[in-house]
């Protein structure tokens, strides 16, 4: 365990070790680094060995105009309180990425969640292909930007037709 680092020192440390496309200091307790696809595992494994033992969240952003997905891994170190956003961009049409469950076992369900809502396939985590929240879902993954919730609901559920025949006396006849 190394001595506690400030957010700026951590950015410098990561820049010295890996090819960092872009690095931001979001605020005093948070930094963000954009890394190449190949570096994600080694950056996460390195940070985990330095005390970033908790995966806070794994999520995805759909940048539809660029035709890309951005995977975001947010990890936290309780002894050196800095959240690190490790971000990488993958192709939107062929969304595949290796699983990180070997580094963070807790990612298992987050990967399943991202697969369900964005269709990203995590290689090496077959369970991530199962449905989790959306039972019997039959359309494209719903958090994609091109999914239109209103159109889906119009297509899926027929409009209820209301009859205004309240003439009960007729029935009594």
């Amino acid at each position, binding site marked *: 365990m190394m001595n506690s680092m400030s957010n700026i020192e951590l950015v410098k440390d990561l820049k010295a070790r890996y090819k960092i496309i872009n690095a931001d200091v*979001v*605020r005093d*307790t*948070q930094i*963000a680094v954009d890394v190449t696809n190949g570096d994600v595992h080694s950056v996460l494994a390195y940070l985990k060995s330095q005390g970033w*033992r*908790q*995966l*806070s*969240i794994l*999520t995805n*952003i*759909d940048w539809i105009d660029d035709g890309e997905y951005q995977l*975001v891994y*947010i990890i*936290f170190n*309780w002894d050196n*309180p800095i*959240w690190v*956003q490790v*971000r990488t961009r993958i192709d939107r049409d062929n969304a595949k990425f290796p699983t990180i469950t070997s580094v*963070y*076992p*807790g990612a*298992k*369900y*987050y990967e399943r969640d991202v697969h369900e*809502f964005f269709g990203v396939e995590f290689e090496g985590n077959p369970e991530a292909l199962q449905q*989790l*929240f*959306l*039972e019997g879902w039959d359309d494209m993954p*719903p*958090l994609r930007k091109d*999914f239109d*919730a209103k159109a889906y609901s119009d297509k899926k559920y027929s409009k209820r037709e209301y009859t205004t025949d309240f003439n009960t006396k007729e029935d009594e006849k």
Partner: protein
Amino acid sequence: MREIKLFLGPQHPGMHGNTSVHMYVEGDIIVKSYLLPGMLHRGFEKGMENRTWVNNLALIPRICVVEPDINEMVFAMGIETLTGMEVPERAHYIRMIILELARISIHLMAYGGIGGPTGHYTMMYHAQADRNTILDIFEKITGHRIYHQYIVPGGVRKDFPKGIEKDIVDFLDDLASRYTEHRDLGIDNPTIKKRLDHHIMLPESVVWELGVTGVGMRSSVNKPYDLRKVTPYARYSEIDFHVPTSDYSDATCRVDIKLQEVVQCIGIIKQCLAKMPEGPVRTKLEGNGLRWKVPKGQVYSAVESSRGEFGYFIVSDGGTKPYRIAVRGASFPQGLLGVEKYLPGQRMDDAALWFDTMGVCSPEIDR
């Protein structure tokens, strides 16, 4: 012995919210189990993308039903980081009072909830009665009992009504005077204690494997891993409080830590009331709220909820609506992975106690 398939929940006295545990039991030992979530999936993350930043204020508290204020807090904190909005000093203290009152209410609810699976409903009634007083206080402050929509970007919606400080202090004194009574009914009661002691242990290695935070983590790791201490938000850095911890995490210990936290909350609120300065409580948004834009950026903001680290990952593309918001439900690890990896080997009547003592909120898992 034959293996039997069994469902716990969604309708069960020991279950928290509409979620269900699907388990295979042999005798009364769980062989395999997993959570069946999705019954409360209401598409919040998609819904938030379709509403303006200000409209979202009415939507977000509904993500966690029992503890809605943390949603407002992380949303406001995230926007303040992106916009650089200043929060008035008084608003920080009001926010802390609201958050701590909410923490007391949910700890009491969770404590009373143990009455369900252990068959001792009296403790539930007592705890709910005290929670009800807190809801009365919330109603006086915000106008709402459950979903307050009170913490907004730039401060809080309005100042405290006159004389509310007395109501709060009266309630806190009343609760403190009956603290031992609550304990005697619950964890100091030999029948309940016998049921909880040395049951559903949570070893430290499991904490790190699952990514559990909050009471579960602190009861096992024995370090004050509380975001209020580790990365103080609002004005927690100026408040003197203690984070109860332990290194033997059985069910009793976790319940005990929740009750000790209630005592700390009482102290925090009293200090806040004493230190709270006079002044404005809200920085007004610039321009029309419905056309209000948040600068481009990606920020993760988190607070310590009663169940652990609760956070929003907020992405703005500079528009009037959020581009993406991802919710980190605090009970995601213990609710999904915990049930799958940790419940096998335990007795089936301990499953409900796992939910109670670890704190699992199904609406925030499903979103």
